[in-house]
């Protein structure tokens, strides 16, 4: 491969990586509080549809992205009520949420006639002065959301590692009984975590529709939500590792169009399998290298029932 192809490849990587990164970060917030959120695929679709709807109506990308976050949060209230208040099995509730959202977004998208209408995305933002570097300078010309992703990650990582609020959230996911005994309101924290995490997952979906592809097609997330769920396990619930994992997935996905452009003949459908195959491979690799200290939140997937203390 020539240098130009490599450069193109690396320059297009962030665009593919951001949805994985944001979705995984949202899931980490949820799961750190002990709620296994399998609904990511559905919430991404909700974000994607709401984003494009707002974009078609208002034409303001920033507003569209915020509205998409709100929409995903709103839908996740349903999930939160199910798993936190009604103690529904989190796997069943998550799956039901995915299919609920798939049906809902396809229905709303076709009823509102938002399908296949191209919109204007957001422009690129050059990171001065790095963008002036000869050759590699164009790596630093990305859209604003790419640059915004880094402070979002920084803020969440700082929140978990350095703030007492973050500590409380982790306590709720690690040992809700102890957290409750310490006066932390488990239910309220879990609710907040699901809503906040879902907003980020919705943002990830809206990034795909508003920023990347600039249009809506039913089911357009195509399994990225599930890959993000796998990515969280790979990242051992750590935000920075999730970002690294997302970049890895972005690299792989970005490579495919570059190879095609360079004239490399690849069996198309096998190429389309790669993100899923890589996810599977990563899961196996994580399992093989399982370290002694398990980073999984202790109460992940378990509903909290106060009376069970007795």
């Amino acid at each position, binding site marked *: 491969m020539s240098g130009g192809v490599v450069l193109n490849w690396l320059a297009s990587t962030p665009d593919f990586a951001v949805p994985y990164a944001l979705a995984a970060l949202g899931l980490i917030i949820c799961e750190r509080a002990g709620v296994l959120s399998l609904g990511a695929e559905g919430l991404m679709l909700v974000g994607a549809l709401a984003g494009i709807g707002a974009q078609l109506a208002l034409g303001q990308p920033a507003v569209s992205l915020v509205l998409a976050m709100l929409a995903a949060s709103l839908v996740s209230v349903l999930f939160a009520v199910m798993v936190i208040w009604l103690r529904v099995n989190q796997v*069943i509730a998550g799956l039901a949420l995915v299919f*609920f959202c798939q049906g809902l977004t396809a229905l709303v998208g076709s009823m509102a006639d938002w399908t296949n209408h191209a919109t204007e995305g957001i422009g690129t933002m050059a990171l001065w002065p790095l963008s002036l570097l000869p050759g590699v300078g164009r790596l630093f010309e990305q859209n604003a959301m790419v640059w915004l992703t880094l402070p979002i990650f920084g803020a969440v990582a700082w929140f978990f590692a350095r703030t007492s609020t973050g500590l409380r959230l982790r306590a709720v996911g690690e040992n809700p009984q102890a957290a409750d005994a310490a006066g932390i309101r488990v239910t309220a924290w879990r609710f907040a975590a699901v809503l906040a995490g879902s907003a980020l997952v919705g943002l990830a979906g809206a990034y795909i529709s508003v920023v990347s592809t600039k249009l809506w097609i039913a089911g357009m997330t195509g399994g990225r939500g599930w890959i993000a769920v796998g990515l969280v396990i790979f990242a051992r619930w750590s935000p920075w590792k999730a970002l690294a994992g997302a970049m890895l997935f972005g690299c792989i996905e970005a490579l495919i169009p570059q190879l095609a452009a360079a004239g490399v003949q690849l*069996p198309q459908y*096998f190429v389309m399998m790669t993100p*899923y195959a890589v*996810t*599977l491979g990563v899961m196996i690799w994580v*399992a093989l290298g399982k370290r002694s200290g398990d980073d999984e939140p202790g109460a992940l997937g378990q509903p909290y029932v106060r009376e069970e203390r*007795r």
Partner: protein
Amino acid sequence: MADASLAAMAHPALTDMKTPEPVRTHQPLASRRYTLEIRQHMAWRWQALILGIALLVGLAISAAILVAAGVPADELANEFVMQTFFDGQNFRAVLFQAAPMILVGLAGSMAFRARFWNLGLEGQMIWGAIGATAVSMWQIGPDNLRLPLMFVAAIGCGLLWVLGPAWLKLKLGVNEIISTLMLNYMAANFLLHLVYGGWKDPKDNFPYSPQFRAFERLPELGAGVGSAILLAGIVALLAWWLVGVSRAGLYLRFVDANPRVAHAAGVPVRRTIYGAVLLSGAMAGLAGFAVVAGQEGRLTQAFYQGYGFSGILIAFLARNNPLAATVVALLVAALFVTGRSLQVFYQVPFSMVQLIQAVIVICVASSDFFIRHRLRRVGREAVA
């Protein structure tokens, strides 16, 4: 939190103690709390009532969504109730649709009984269909043995596609939810590779395999009812015998209740889990066979869509009981048939069927809360 009533809750022994007379003139709202208790047992008719109400609520919400989407309300009732169940042709359509539905429902319940979240039903179904089609494409075996060979190939392929996740889970502890899902996407892409590639019908160049010959299709039983439904019924009875009567079924119940205790009691836990999961894959493969040999007559590119979730839904609603799964599968099949006609007449997208199924699952899953818990008011009044 230092509420007298809550202290009494935490220490049942304290409830017998004489509490001071409550002050009725001023009772802050915060002291009027509701607390949750876990209900030990509920009479089955109450359980059935709650379940029935949940189903009705789910159907009512779904109907409201459909009406909002532009389907006239009276047409809806007519379409679902009258057309689907009281019209001979439509009832046959439901039976026709039910065969693969029953098989995926049984597949789901078999794996869930072993506490294995087999979300890869669609992938296994795709491989079952590919296996059956391969036998037809390559004309393996004599004509009169072709259909049984296709049957065996479908079972084998479905089983093999779930063997990987089963082994990864039991050997390495790889989360089966993710692994089976990823394998779905891979199987779907492989299917596209076949029908857009080497297996494309040379006659009209459409992305589906050449049509099966007459002896490669499941025969009709008579009155327009295909034998696929008979096959599904036989598998349902076998599954019922297996989980309800046989020794393996007893083992499976042990494993489902508590794998550790089961192991201590001498149950071959791993073998039981493997057996149930592989059987689940085999049944899903058989569902693929039922679609290609019973319905489509060829391998098509999107035949599997919606079956994975339906299988999970059926298993969940039937509480993994094979006979109940058969009944639920018939209802879901009716939903599919109704969905198809709504799609044709009102341009409602087919994912509407998914939405309705999800609403029903949400309602039924949530109603479980009222079966498992009771709300009890505690407060100063209640304690006194």
